[in-house]
Protein backbone atom coordinates (compact mmCIF):
# COMPACT_ATOMS: atom_id res chain seq x y z
CA UNK A 1 0.00 0.00 0.00
CA UNK A 2 1.45 3.34 -1.00
CA UNK A 3 2.20 6.01 1.58
CA UNK A 4 0.44 8.42 -0.72
CA UNK A 5 -2.90 6.65 -0.28
CA UNK A 6 -2.44 6.47 3.49
CA UNK A 7 -1.63 10.19 3.52
CA UNK A 8 -4.76 10.96 1.50
CA UNK A 9 -6.87 8.94 3.93
CA UNK A 10 -5.29 10.69 6.92
CA UNK A 11 -6.11 14.04 5.35
CA UNK A 12 -9.69 12.92 4.69
CA UNK A 13 -10.39 11.69 8.23
CA UNK A 14 -9.20 15.02 9.62
CA UNK A 15 -11.19 17.06 7.11
CA UNK A 16 -14.56 16.62 8.82
CA UNK A 17 -15.63 16.14 12.44
CA UNK A 18 -17.77 13.17 11.39
CA UNK A 19 -16.68 11.19 8.35
CA UNK A 20 -18.10 7.95 6.97
CA UNK A 21 -16.30 5.78 4.44
CA UNK A 22 -19.11 3.97 2.65
CA UNK A 23 -20.20 2.21 -0.51
CA UNK A 24 -22.29 4.63 -2.56
CA UNK A 25 -23.68 7.95 -1.42
CA UNK A 26 -26.05 8.97 1.39
CA UNK A 27 -28.86 9.21 -1.16
CA UNK A 28 -27.94 5.97 -2.93
CA UNK A 29 -26.04 3.64 -0.60
CA UNK A 30 -24.85 0.52 -2.44
CA UNK A 31 -24.78 -1.84 0.52
CA UNK A 32 -27.11 -2.61 3.40
CA UNK A 33 -24.45 -1.91 6.02
CA UNK A 34 -23.66 1.51 4.54
CA UNK A 35 -27.38 2.24 4.32
CA UNK A 36 -27.78 1.43 7.99
CA UNK A 37 -24.83 3.65 8.94
CA UNK A 38 -26.36 6.58 7.05
CA UNK A 39 -29.73 6.00 8.72
CA UNK A 40 -28.07 6.21 12.14
CA UNK A 41 -26.20 9.42 11.31
CA UNK A 42 -29.36 10.98 9.86
CA UNK A 43 -31.29 10.00 12.95
CA UNK A 44 -28.68 11.64 15.17
CA UNK A 45 -29.14 14.84 13.19
CA UNK A 46 -25.39 15.39 12.95
CA UNK A 47 -23.54 17.00 10.06
CA UNK A 48 -21.28 14.49 8.34
CA UNK A 49 -19.17 13.96 5.25
CA UNK A 50 -18.85 10.74 3.28
CA UNK A 51 -16.27 9.12 1.04
CA UNK A 52 -17.59 6.67 -1.58
CA UNK A 53 -14.96 3.94 -1.71
CA UNK A 54 -16.52 2.51 -4.87
CA UNK A 55 -15.18 5.57 -6.71
CA UNK A 56 -11.56 4.82 -5.80
CA UNK A 57 -10.12 1.29 -5.56
CA UNK A 58 -6.98 2.60 -3.84
CA UNK A 59 -9.01 4.20 -1.07
CA UNK A 60 -11.23 1.12 -0.83
CA UNK A 61 -8.20 -1.09 -0.19
CA UNK A 62 -6.21 1.50 1.76
CA UNK A 63 -8.87 2.33 4.32
CA UNK A 64 -8.86 -1.28 5.52
CA UNK A 65 -5.16 -1.04 6.25
CA UNK A 66 -5.41 2.47 7.69
CA UNK A 67 -7.73 1.34 10.48
CA UNK A 68 -6.81 -2.35 10.61
CA UNK A 69 -10.50 -2.99 9.92
CA UNK A 70 -11.55 -5.30 7.08
CA UNK A 71 -14.97 -3.93 6.23
CA UNK A 72 -16.82 -0.85 5.06
CA UNK A 73 -18.56 1.34 6.27
CA UNK A 74 -16.15 2.92 8.74
CA UNK A 75 -16.99 5.86 10.96
CA UNK A 76 -14.44 8.44 12.11
CA UNK A 77 -15.09 11.16 14.67
CA UNK A 78 -12.48 13.90 15.00
CA UNK A 79 -10.05 11.72 13.11
CA UNK A 80 -10.49 8.71 15.42
CA UNK A 81 -11.81 5.38 14.15
CA UNK A 82 -15.08 4.51 15.92
CA UNK A 83 -16.19 1.30 14.21
CA UNK A 84 -18.36 -0.22 11.51
CA UNK A 85 -22.13 -0.43 11.25
CA UNK A 86 -22.59 -3.09 13.96
CA UNK A 87 -20.68 -0.97 16.47
CA UNK A 88 -22.51 2.16 15.33
CA UNK A 89 -25.84 0.43 15.97
CA UNK A 90 -24.79 -0.86 19.39
CA UNK A 91 -23.46 2.55 20.41
CA UNK A 92 -26.55 4.29 19.06
CA UNK A 93 -28.87 1.99 21.02
CA UNK A 94 -26.83 2.54 24.18
CA UNK A 95 -26.81 6.34 23.74
CA UNK A 96 -23.04 6.24 23.39
CA UNK A 97 -22.91 7.86 19.95
CA UNK A 98 -24.62 10.96 21.33
CA UNK A 99 -22.18 10.91 24.24
CA UNK A 100 -19.28 10.72 21.80
CA UNK A 101 -20.60 13.70 19.83
CA UNK A 102 -21.14 15.68 23.03
CA UNK A 103 -17.67 14.87 24.33
CA UNK A 104 -16.23 16.23 21.09
CA UNK A 105 -18.43 19.31 21.04
CA UNK A 106 -20.16 18.26 17.82
CA UNK A 107 -23.68 19.64 17.28
CA UNK A 108 -26.58 17.24 16.74
CA UNK A 109 -30.36 17.22 16.87
Amino acid sequence: MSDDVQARIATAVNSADVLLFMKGTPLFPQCGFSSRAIAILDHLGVEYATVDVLQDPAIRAGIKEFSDWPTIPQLYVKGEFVGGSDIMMEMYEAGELLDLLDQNGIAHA
Partner: protein
Amino acid sequence: MFSSASKSFYIGRMSELPTGPVAAEISRRLTAALAPTRLAVIDDSESHRGHAGHDGSGESHFTVEIESPAFAGQSRVARQRAVNAALGDLLRDRIHALAIRAKAPGE
Protein backbone atom coordinates in the same frame (compact mmCIF):
# COMPACT_ATOMS: atom_id res chain seq x y z
CA MET B 1 -19.08 -25.63 25.92
CA PHE B 2 -20.02 -27.47 22.76
CA SER B 3 -19.19 -31.11 22.39
CA SER B 4 -19.03 -31.04 18.63
CA ALA B 5 -19.03 -28.54 15.80
CA SER B 6 -22.34 -29.82 14.54
CA LYS B 7 -24.11 -28.59 17.66
CA SER B 8 -22.43 -25.20 17.89
CA PHE B 9 -24.58 -23.30 15.42
CA TYR B 10 -28.22 -23.19 14.56
CA ILE B 11 -30.01 -23.03 11.23
CA GLY B 12 -30.92 -19.49 10.21
CA ARG B 13 -34.44 -18.25 10.69
CA MET B 14 -34.61 -16.97 7.14
CA SER B 15 -33.79 -20.26 5.48
CA GLU B 16 -35.06 -23.78 5.28
CA LEU B 17 -31.70 -24.91 3.97
CA PRO B 18 -29.38 -27.01 6.08
CA THR B 19 -26.46 -25.04 7.47
CA GLY B 20 -23.64 -25.31 4.99
CA PRO B 21 -19.90 -25.80 5.08
CA VAL B 22 -18.99 -22.11 5.38
CA ALA B 23 -21.18 -21.65 8.46
CA ALA B 24 -19.68 -24.81 9.93
CA GLU B 25 -16.16 -23.50 9.31
CA ILE B 26 -17.02 -20.12 10.87
CA SER B 27 -18.32 -21.96 13.90
CA ARG B 28 -15.27 -24.20 14.10
CA ARG B 29 -12.77 -21.33 13.93
CA LEU B 30 -14.59 -19.15 16.45
CA THR B 31 -14.95 -22.06 18.85
CA ALA B 32 -11.24 -22.85 18.58
CA ALA B 33 -10.06 -19.25 18.96
CA LEU B 34 -12.48 -17.76 21.48
CA ALA B 35 -14.00 -20.66 23.45
CA PRO B 36 -17.48 -19.11 23.32
CA THR B 37 -20.07 -19.74 26.01
CA ARG B 38 -22.74 -19.05 23.41
CA LEU B 39 -22.47 -19.00 19.63
CA ALA B 40 -24.96 -18.66 16.79
CA VAL B 41 -23.90 -18.49 13.15
CA ILE B 42 -26.88 -17.38 11.10
CA ASP B 43 -26.86 -17.60 7.31
CA ASP B 44 -28.65 -14.49 6.02
CA SER B 45 -27.77 -15.20 2.40
CA GLU B 46 -31.25 -16.03 1.19
CA SER B 47 -32.49 -12.49 1.92
CA HIS B 48 -29.74 -11.16 -0.36
CA ARG B 49 -30.32 -13.45 -3.34
CA GLY B 50 -29.82 -11.70 -6.66
CA HIS B 51 -27.80 -8.73 -5.48
CA ALA B 52 -24.09 -8.07 -5.42
CA GLY B 53 -22.09 -10.53 -3.40
CA HIS B 54 -24.57 -13.38 -3.59
CA ASP B 55 -22.70 -15.99 -5.56
CA GLY B 56 -25.60 -18.40 -5.94
CA SER B 57 -24.18 -21.02 -3.59
CA GLY B 58 -26.11 -19.66 -0.66
CA GLU B 59 -23.46 -18.98 1.91
CA SER B 60 -22.31 -15.37 1.57
CA HIS B 61 -24.04 -13.23 4.21
CA PHE B 62 -23.82 -14.17 7.87
CA THR B 63 -24.64 -12.90 11.32
CA VAL B 64 -22.49 -14.12 14.21
CA GLU B 65 -23.78 -13.82 17.76
CA ILE B 66 -21.01 -14.76 20.15
CA GLU B 67 -20.55 -14.63 23.89
CA SER B 68 -17.07 -15.31 25.22
CA PRO B 69 -15.18 -14.64 28.44
CA ALA B 70 -12.33 -13.49 26.18
CA PHE B 71 -14.31 -10.30 25.49
CA ALA B 72 -14.48 -9.18 29.13
CA GLY B 73 -12.96 -5.73 29.45
CA GLN B 74 -12.46 -5.40 25.69
CA SER B 75 -13.80 -2.54 23.59
CA ARG B 76 -16.30 -3.18 20.82
CA VAL B 77 -13.59 -2.59 18.25
CA ALA B 78 -11.24 -5.05 19.96
CA ARG B 79 -13.96 -7.73 20.09
CA GLN B 80 -14.73 -7.45 16.40
CA ARG B 81 -11.05 -7.48 15.55
CA ALA B 82 -10.73 -10.73 17.53
CA VAL B 83 -13.61 -12.28 15.60
CA ASN B 84 -12.19 -11.05 12.29
CA ALA B 85 -8.75 -12.40 13.15
CA ALA B 86 -10.17 -15.80 14.04
CA LEU B 87 -11.94 -16.01 10.68
CA GLY B 88 -8.82 -14.94 8.75
CA ASP B 89 -8.87 -15.83 5.06
CA LEU B 90 -12.47 -16.99 5.32
CA LEU B 91 -13.50 -13.37 5.80
CA ARG B 92 -11.38 -12.17 2.93
CA ASP B 93 -12.16 -14.86 0.38
CA ARG B 94 -15.46 -16.47 1.17
CA ILE B 95 -17.70 -14.20 3.25
CA HIS B 96 -19.26 -11.20 1.53
CA ALA B 97 -20.96 -9.68 4.56
CA LEU B 98 -20.71 -10.37 8.25
CA ALA B 99 -22.67 -8.79 11.07
CA ILE B 100 -21.14 -9.37 14.51
CA ARG B 101 -22.71 -9.13 17.93
CA ALA B 102 -20.07 -9.87 20.55
CA LYS B 103 -20.74 -9.96 24.28
CA ALA B 104 -18.96 -11.05 27.40
CA PRO B 105 -20.94 -13.30 29.80
CA GLY B 106 -23.31 -11.30 31.98
CA GLU B 107 -23.68 -8.34 29.62
